[in-house]
């Protein structure tokens, strides 16, 4: 065999795990993003006393596939004197940024594309911050007035909330002491507590910053329908628009995974160190998915069209198959070794799902911030709070290591100190807006400058 083929074979042999994981992520992501969209529409409908997509497939289960096909077929309109090269390239940037940052994430103790990079979390945050390059270039390239304003607004928002998010991550990293993702989760196992409880203010700041970073819920101003039609996405249609849309949802999953790894104990099951819970919580995933299968059989009978009943039966079978995989290691011993990987992935995805559920929940209930209020909240309240929190966690760790305070006592004292500062900031903010109650809200006009 000639040397190049030999070298390629060697390369494949050493890296096949990473390549497989990578391919799985790239293939599964559009599907997962599609079904996250379906879940969001169903949840929104449920909260608004209506049914949501019901027509395509039973209970709208095939809706994402229908959406994907529609977007592929739709015509790609390029505005007249748009900047060809950048117009095509911008959505690709935001999609690629989201996907590469997913490469470093660990979806379970075993499932990780890039094994223990030394700068794990920093890599994820850094590459996902490339995403908003795609947004600003997209806004500029489509050469329409609305999209330029949308692009400038969304970039200003992303830049300011990324600082707050970064500082919140710093205070969590203080607790874990390392950047490696797997080491962070192990640190949470050693501390026998999730960092979300140890540094609640950091968790809350990161939650707010991540919502703003993915342009969602009360901060979804750049594409506020009522004013700027669709912000930087106005001129995009068909497949390019789908890329942006996918990029947004992939970003949401990335942000959810970072929060879960840092604050919600990654793939640790709820009470990791309580050993008598091992068996019940171990079997729980299999039971849950089996339950879903039984429910879909129950629904299969009620479908109006026979084809839908068949489809519901297929869904039921799929659920039972997955439940079988989860239950198999408990049944016969030799498969014992895959339990941590499988259950870990289950708990991780459950927590990411819960985190994204909070995103959606906020989207349906809260009205939208005005742009200057949004920037004001970011710069005057969130960033100072994050800085003070980094300082407070540092002091807490110092108190605990040098003066031998109990860890919990130190953290409670410092969190109280941070919350006092937060209250002061909020009151300062309220006094300022009510004081400036003249006809024009005397806020900094960040855009006009």
């Amino acid at each position, binding site marked *: 065999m000639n040397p190049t083929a030999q*070298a390629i074979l060697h*390369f494949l042999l050493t890296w096949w795990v990473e390549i497989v994981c990578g391919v799985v992520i790239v293939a599964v992501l559009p599907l997962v993003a599609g079904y996250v969209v379906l879940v969001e529409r169903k949840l929104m409908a449920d909260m608004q006393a209506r049914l949501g997509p019901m027509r395509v497939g039973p209970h709208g289960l095939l809706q994402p596939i229908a959406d994907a096909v529609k977007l592929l077929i739709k015509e790609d309109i390029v505005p007249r004197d748009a*900047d060809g*090269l*950048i117009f095509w*390239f911008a959505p690709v940037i935001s999609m690629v940024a989201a996907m590469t940052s997913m490469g470093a994430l660990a979806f379970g103790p075993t499932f990780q594309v890039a094994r223990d*990079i*030394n*700068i794990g979390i*920093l*890599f994820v*945050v*850094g*590459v996902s*911050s*490339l995403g*908003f*390059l795609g947004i*600003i*270039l997209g806004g*500029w*390239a489509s050469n329409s007035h609305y999209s*330029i304003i949308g*692009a*400038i607004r969304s*970039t200003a928002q992303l*830049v300011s909330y*990324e600082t707050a998010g970064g500082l919140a991550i710093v205070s969590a990293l203080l607790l874990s002491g390392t*950047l490696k993702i797997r080491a962070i989760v192990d640190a949470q196992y050693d501390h026998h507590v999730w960092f979300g409880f140890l540094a609640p203010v950091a968790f809350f700041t990161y939650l707010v910053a991540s919502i703003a970073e993915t342009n969602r819920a009360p901060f979804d101003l750049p594409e506020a329908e009522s004013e700027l039609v669709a912000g930087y996405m106005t001129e995009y249609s068909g497949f390019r628009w789908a890329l942006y849309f996918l990029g947004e949802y992939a970003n949401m999953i990335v942000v959810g995974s970072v929060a879960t790894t840092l604050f919600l104990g990654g793939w640790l099951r709820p009470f990791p160190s309580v050993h008598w819970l091992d068996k019940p919580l171990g079997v729980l995933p299999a039971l849950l998915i089996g339950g879903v299968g039984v429910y879909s059989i129950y629904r299969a009978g009620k479908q109006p069209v026979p084809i839908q009943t068949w489809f519901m039966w297929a869904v039921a079978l799929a659920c039972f198959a997955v439940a079988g995989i989860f239950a198999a290691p408990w049944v016969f011993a030799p498969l014992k070794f895959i339990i941590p990987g499988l259950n870990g992935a289950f708990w991780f995805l459950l927590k990411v799902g819960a985190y994204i559920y909070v995103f959606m929940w906020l989207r349906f209930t809260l009205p939208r911030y005005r742009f200057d209020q949004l920037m004001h909240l970011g710069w005057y309240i969130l960033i100072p709070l994050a800085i003070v929190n980094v300082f407070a966690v540092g002091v807490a760790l110092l108190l605990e290591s040098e003066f031998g305070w109990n860890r919990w006592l130190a953290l409670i004292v410092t969190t109280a100190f941070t919350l006092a500062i937060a209250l002061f900031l909020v009151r300062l903010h309220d006094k300022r807006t009510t004081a400036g109650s003249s*006809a*024009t809200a005397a806020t900094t006009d960040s855009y*006009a*400058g």
Partner: protein
Amino acid sequence: MLDSILFYFFAGVAVLSAALMVTRRNAMHCAVFLITTLLATAGIFLQLRAEFLFIAQIILYVGGIMVLFIFVIMLVRLDVPIHQMRFRLQKWVAVFVALALGFEITTILLFARKLPGQGLFIQESFPADKLPPNSEALAQSLFSGYLLPFEIASVLLLVAMVGAVVMAKKKERTDES
């Protein structure tokens, strides 16, 4: 084998996009090509086992400075027709001088070892596996050996921030109703 493939890929991308950056007329295209060069050099840093610098380059350079450039290019509408691109002698003089400089340095690099006695001695490179973990080593020397420059750099950044804000601030309109 993998190393050389990666190196030639990154080097090729870097040089090509740098050349394109210098020649493009539309400033936004220049910015995009500069971003590709920066990402390629970040790849080179990674190959030289400097991963903290790799991520610092991505976050600071591409995520920070280039966004600043793109913002200014967007605000300063440049599509005012640039008609003055007439042929100027200056361009060719510059290219010639650069090539002369390049030739000069390549001769030094290539023939250094051959000159007796005082050639450019390039030491055998440090074994890869005994390298300390990168970000820890960087932090170690940054906060112990180079603490003072670190503080000065932060002051420098503060001054730059204040200067930029003051300069770019629009004079508050007097008729602000």
